[in-house]
């Protein structure tokens, strides 16, 4: 099995925040913490695009590199996890992460930063799989139940795909070729526009919409 990955199809995401809600409900995440959120580019402008963002479980994760107490680890499935017993809540990972994935819950009346919390790809943490202790600290361990992350499985338009990187790449490739820009999906015309002196690029082959 290859590495576990998320892939968000911006053409399909309708900014319903179902993934955010599914994540919060599945893991009983407290107020102020969002392991996943939906980001919209050009909000309100025709042609706006949204994508769902969480920890991307990087192959060479910057959070792992900067953590002063080395609380991160990567599993065989390529999921980046951390040990909350080691975390000191310093926030270095928050600076290092390009996606803003690490979250810091309010742990006291005066807003002291708690231990870091982030998307676990629904894979729990170091505690015994599917135990109460694991659920309290890291949320549900769906991978140990043979399931994929709740956000991806709940996505109504299947914009958010999660799972084996090879498989979701195949699903996305099939989708892009099927939804129709014909031979113009990839290639010179799409990447660089029409060739000099050749006029406009060809129209979409079937059902595709130009944005």
């Amino acid at each position: 099995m290859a590495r576990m990955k998320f892939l968000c199809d911006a053409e399909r995401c309708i900014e319903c925040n179902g993934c955010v809600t599914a994540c919060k409900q599945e893991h009983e995440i407290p107020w102020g913490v969002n392991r996943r959120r939906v980001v919209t580019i050009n909000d309100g402008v025709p042609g706006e695009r949204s994508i769902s963002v969480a920890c991307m479980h990087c192959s060479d994760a910057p959070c792992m590199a900067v953590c002063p107490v080395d609380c991160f680890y990567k599993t065989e499935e390529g999921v980046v996890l951390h040990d909350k017993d080691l975390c000191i809540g310093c926030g270095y990972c928050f600076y290092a992460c390009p996606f803003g994935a690490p979250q810091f819950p309010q742990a006291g009346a005066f807003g002291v930063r708690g231990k870091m919390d982030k998307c676990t790809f629904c894979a729990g943490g170091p505690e015994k799989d599917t135990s109460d202790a694991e659920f309290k600290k890291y949320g549900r361990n769906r991978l140990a139940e043979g399931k994929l992350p709740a956000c991806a499985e709940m996505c109504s338009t299947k914009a958010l795909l999660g799972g084996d990187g090879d498989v979701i790449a195949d699903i996305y490739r099939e989708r892009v070729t099927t939804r129709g820009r014909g031979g113009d999906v990839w290639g010179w015309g799409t990447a660089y526009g029409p060739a000099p002196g050749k006029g406009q690029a060809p129209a979409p082959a079937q059902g595709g919409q130009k944005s």
Partner: protein
Amino acid sequence: MTRQLVAVALAGVFALGLSACGERPQVVNYKQGAYQGKPDSKPWESAQFNNNKDEWERAIRTRNQAQNEYKRI
């Protein structure tokens, strides 16, 4: 003599610079129930799969394909 010292210093700087181009291995190291010193078990070691990796992979593969609506129609 000075020229030799400069050459040695330059060689040292060059070697140091090259060493910075190295890349840490990306291979996950799982030893005695721990990833890089942090204890964790594998998903197929849960009570549901009883250490049956094939069965777990089959379950994940089925779930993966369930995300492909072209296969579900």
